[in-house]
């Protein structure tokens, strides 16, 4: 009897928490279709804010910057992270404690410390050498820095899940290391690579603090634009652009999840 009341109470609590978790997002989505200017009341449905987005040059530039930043940084991080993930696997019997610390550092460092360190570094470096002016370039560098660990860990865990005798077999099958990489390794870790790419992409689009401190005057991304608009006083357009971002991130995250599940399934089958 008592158990049933407990279970009922917990079920109610679960649904209340879900409302708590989704309410802020739902409000943003709902108000993006609001016909009036008011941020406090809905007067009717319309798509006018979405129409306005298309005509807003700043938003379009910010959108472009976000895409360029996410794609460039994810590609670079994929290459570097993949190498490091494989190196960690191949040499896992050595004492690589320092490498693990190094790889976890970008994950555990508070965003604000991360962003400010990079900013101080880039500013002084630019003063001394004239290179690395704050802009998309410095942002790409910063993003790659926090993406590398995630790529490396995903690739590493994929390799660990493989049967070690596969590597021996590949050695017998393919004569040159290059052939081994092209015909054996890359196809085998493809799910991990795709999952890592989408995770990096999502992380990049999601990031605000690190981008904010490494950005230049003309390299604002969508989160930075939204931040500025909020600070200046809310314009209803923000709801529309935020809704689009919620949708895009949800799709990217779903794809990443799908591939990571595939990754796990195939790993289960092999073990």
């Amino acid at each position: 009897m008592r158990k049933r009341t407990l279970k009922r109470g917990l079920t109610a609590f679960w649904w209340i928490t879900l409302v708590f978790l989704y309410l802020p997002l739902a409000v943003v989505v709902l108000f993006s279709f609001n016909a009036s200017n008011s941020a406090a009341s809905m007067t009717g449905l319309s798509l006018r804010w979405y129409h306005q987005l298309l005509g807003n040059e700043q938003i379009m530039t910010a959108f472009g910057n976000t895409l360029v930043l996410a794609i460039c940084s994810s590609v670079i991080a994929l290459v570097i992270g993949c190498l490091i993930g494989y190196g960690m696997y191949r040499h896992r019997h050595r004492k690589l404690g320092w490498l693990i610390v190094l790889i976890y550092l970008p994950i555990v460092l508070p965003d604000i410390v991360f962003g400010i360190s990079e900013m101080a570094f880039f500013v002084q470096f630019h003063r001394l050498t004239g290179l690395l002016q704050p802009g998309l370039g410095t942002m790409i560098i910063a993003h790659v820095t926090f993406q590398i660990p995630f790529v490396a860990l995903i690739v590493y865990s994929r390799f660990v899940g493989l049967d070690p005798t596969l590597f021996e077999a590949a050695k017998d099958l393919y004569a040159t290391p290059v052939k081994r990489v092209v015909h054996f390794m890359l196809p085998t870790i493809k799910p991990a690579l795709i999952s890592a790419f989408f995770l990096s992409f999502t992380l990049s689009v999601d990031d605000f603090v690190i981008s904010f401190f490494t950005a230049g005057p003309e390299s604002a991304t969508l989160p930075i634009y939204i931040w500025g608009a909020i600070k200046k006083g809310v314009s209803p357009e923000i709801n529309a652009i935020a809704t689009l971002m919620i949708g895009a991130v949800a799709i990217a995250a779903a794809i990443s999840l799908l591939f990571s599940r595939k990754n796990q399934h195939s790993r289960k089958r092999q073990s």
Partner: protein
Amino acid sequence: MSTNTIAVMGRSQGMVREARHLLFTVAPGALWIVIFLVLPSLYLMAVAFMTNGPYGLPQMPLSLNSFKQLAGVGFLGWSPGNLYTLLRSLWQTLVATGLVVLVAYPLAYYITTCRAKWRPIMLLLVVVPSWTNQVIRTFGWMNLLAPGTPLSNAAEVLGFISPNMGLYPSNFAVTLGLVYNFLPFMVLPLYAAFEKLDTAQVEAAQDLYAKPTRAFWHAVFPQTLPGLLAGIVLVAIPAFGMYVIPELLGGGKAMMLGNLVATQFSGGSNWPLGAAGAILMLIATFIGLFAMRRIGKRLGGGEEVVI
């Protein structure tokens, strides 16, 4: 030449090749992180010990001025503004972490009592909101808590706030934002702990006629403690350094350490002071990491929890 020496030569050649392989695969990433993160953070630490120059840029000589300023020693004597900010950060972190535990604990337990096929989906439902941009999520709360919204009106009728004030900006809004932001970080490790729960202990307690509360504290709670502690580290450390939430939901009177640090850099006013604040966060982070390692050893594979 004996076969033995050939074998030795072969091995040493192999070792050279292995070392070269290690260098080729690991060096680019390791160098990248060292150049673009380790060196900058070391530089930041050095800045904390320099003096504030024109335009807020650091200069020699070395001094401890920035730490004194953080503790409240100003040009015109005692000005505790920075100290208040520091204490507020600690207090907000404490309250938010406590509230997150109170919400996440029953939630994680509830998920484990549901059918196995639903559990991953339920966990996903808890995590998905945190995938959207933090600025957008916080903006959502601004919409919900602003003056004139149903929530603010309700709080006004109940007498929690004075008329036309709205629930935001306020310290309360910051706490709420923190709880919202960090809930998933607590649910995941707690869920992992509950899933591994040894129910035999609970049954033993019941067989011995232990009251439910006693059975909980002696048979359930100790088993979930590693997950709980991991969750606390995952929530408290980033909450202490939070920037976006207090900036948007707090207004000027609810500043936290993250805002203090950021202001010193973005306004170009005082880099050394900002760097000193950043060092406090670094210390907090390393204490957290150390605690995490110890918990991880007891939990067995605590590193999975980090991601």
